[in-house]
């Protein structure tokens, strides 16, 4: 039976202690969920860390992993980010082969995406770009016409655009 997969982004507040990331990540693994990306960052409360986890799941299994994750002792709260009402950002570093002949063209694309040339050498450059995951995807696709040497993405971090405190 085919069950449509949904990509979800959850914000998990966890206690700032040894092994906390392992606990959450291995919990996802134990329940059979694959994490697409995860970021871990400090919050305004030094005792809490925020994990932003992107994963794919069916509607029912998504509820499962959320309620299962809430049971972990180290988890303070699990919150599914509301897609319409949240801001997501990701940082990209992309190294591309670029001799004198390609530099201007690539620079033009980078400018359209409001990225930066973070490093330049005789035959390559490193581009730095922040934006929504969709914007980063679009940029990476466009760069496929050139010889991309390396791609690094941070994974998504997100925040809801309302007054609520998480």
């Amino acid at each position: 039976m085919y069950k449509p997969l949904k990509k979800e982004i959850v914000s998990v507040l966890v206690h700032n202690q040894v092994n906390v990331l392992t606990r959450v990540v291995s919990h996802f693994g134990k329940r059979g969920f694959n994490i697409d990306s995860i970021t871990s960052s400090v919050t305004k409360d030094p005792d809490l860390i925020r994990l932003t986890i992107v994963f794919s799941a069916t509607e029912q299994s998504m509820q499962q992993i959320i309620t299962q994750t809430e049971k972990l002792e180290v988890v303070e709260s699990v919150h599914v980010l509301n897609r319409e009402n949240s801001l997501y950002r990701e940082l990209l570093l992309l190294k591309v082969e670029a001799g004198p002949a390609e530099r201007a063209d690539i620079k033009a694309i980078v400018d359209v995406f409001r990225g930066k040339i973070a490093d330049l050498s005789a035959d390559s450059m490193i581009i730095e770009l922040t934006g929504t995951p969709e914007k980063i995807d679009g940029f990476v696709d466009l760069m496929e016409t050139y010889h991309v040497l390396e791609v690094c993405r941070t994974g998504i971090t997100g925040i809801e655009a309302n007054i609520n405190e998480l």
Partner: protein
Amino acid sequence: MKLTGSQIVLEVLLDHGVDTVFGYPGGTALNIFDELYKYSDKIKHVLTAHEQGASHAADGYARATGKTGVCFSTSGPGATNLVTGLATVFMDSIPVIAICANVPDSLIGKDSFQEVSITSVTMAITKHNYFVNRIEDLEPALRDAFRVANSGRKGPVLIDITKDVTAAITEFTNKEPMPLKARPQISDEDIAEAVALINEAQKPVAYVGGGVVASGAEKELVELLEKADIPVTHTLMSAGVVGYDHDLNLGMLGMHGTIAANRAIDQCDLVIALGARFSDRVALNPGRFGHRAKIVQVDIDKSEVNKNVVIDKAVVGDVKDFLTKALPLVEEIKHDEWHNRVDGWKKRSRVVESDAPLHPKEILDIISDKTDEDTIYVTDVGQHQMWSAQYLKHNKAKKFITSGGLGTMGFGYGAAIGAKMGCPGDRVIHITGDGSFHMNLNEACTAVSQNLPIITVIMNNQVLGMVYQWQTIFYDGRYSNTTPERKTDYVKLAEGFGAKGYRATTPEEFEAAMDKALKADGPVWIECVISREERVLPMIPAGKSAEDMIID
């Protein structure tokens, strides 16, 4: 007062009323065991043959008493030997605390002798675990462990303490246990909606699990069943919560459940699931489970809702809280037509036996007849376990101790020792098979050392019966590695351990052996020779539904 880490461990145990622990010493645990020596008038430490036995003993103790089971081990292999026991209690939601010593902090992470990161190893099979390498973290971790193990859905907690911490000194004061986490509040709307479904139902069935035992709701459950004339079926974990001979009791549900229980779930218009988790041995085909019915589920663990079976009305909370609030609103009613149909199915149950002289049901009938209702039956895992669930005359909660979720062969002897230590006044009968018993029969030495009059009934069919049965039915009789050809002489072996051993090949011999065993003041084994062709029936194959039930 100033105390060492080891003294703090024992003082916190005393604060929580712990007077019996199970374990095995070792190099890194020396400081703790030195204190156990000095505290021996307040805390009884039961030395087992193997740490696995200690973990099952702590488990059996917890299941029989309702208190927290505690086990101790040293680092490395001592700690890894606890793993199966912890996984067993994790699956069955039993409060057990494991306290391990580890190498000194200065040696952590250096592949030191007997070093294992047991917190990493047990992350997936504990509710929570703590690695303590600072003395100031020890007392909070210990106190928190009791709170975590007993709050909400109960379960195991492990504390790993570096050896230097067991010797370090800090300030300590005795305190009351921390309050448990607040239970989920059940709203009036939830009660009203669930009760409305119960009052509307024409063909209701209650499906009760281990949660009823954990919340101590047996009395309220029977009140509900009788008030609204609701037939009830139980899981392996809740045998005894309703008396075996109660008019409304349909017996066990699921793969080896009764015809009546499985038919009733298939045909009913309302399933009332109380503290049960729709496991794959109960809801074998989750899409077909109660497929004509609305399903009400009451469970303290929110993640059990919609996990395996889609629920119409979920109430997250303690079963006893729910029943107490719901009972006054439930209408007194009779479901005569439904009752008659269910009774018809009950009459269809029959026992299929081989033509051997001694049958499993005869053994279990004799055991039931010769023991009182306070007797604790402890099983291992396999055919004998299912027969014990089916045929013993279960009358009370906490009197049938078995590894349900994990299905741990070798669970029984350790658990029986724990149960007997916890309930010395109650008779303990350990029912096992020749396969399971060979896994951990070494704990006989513990039963002898402690002089525990545990009667072990070994159903010896010379095969690994449950797997053998599957090979008979599903693998055309290709008996791969289920006919071990063992030549174990159980009578001599029992005597070698310092226990008593008997052998029975007929019901008369078994009765005579039981009579002698019941008078003995130490452990007794009774080997019962049964046929390898005995099967556990009825059986619903994995993934199938009540319609696919194999009856003979």
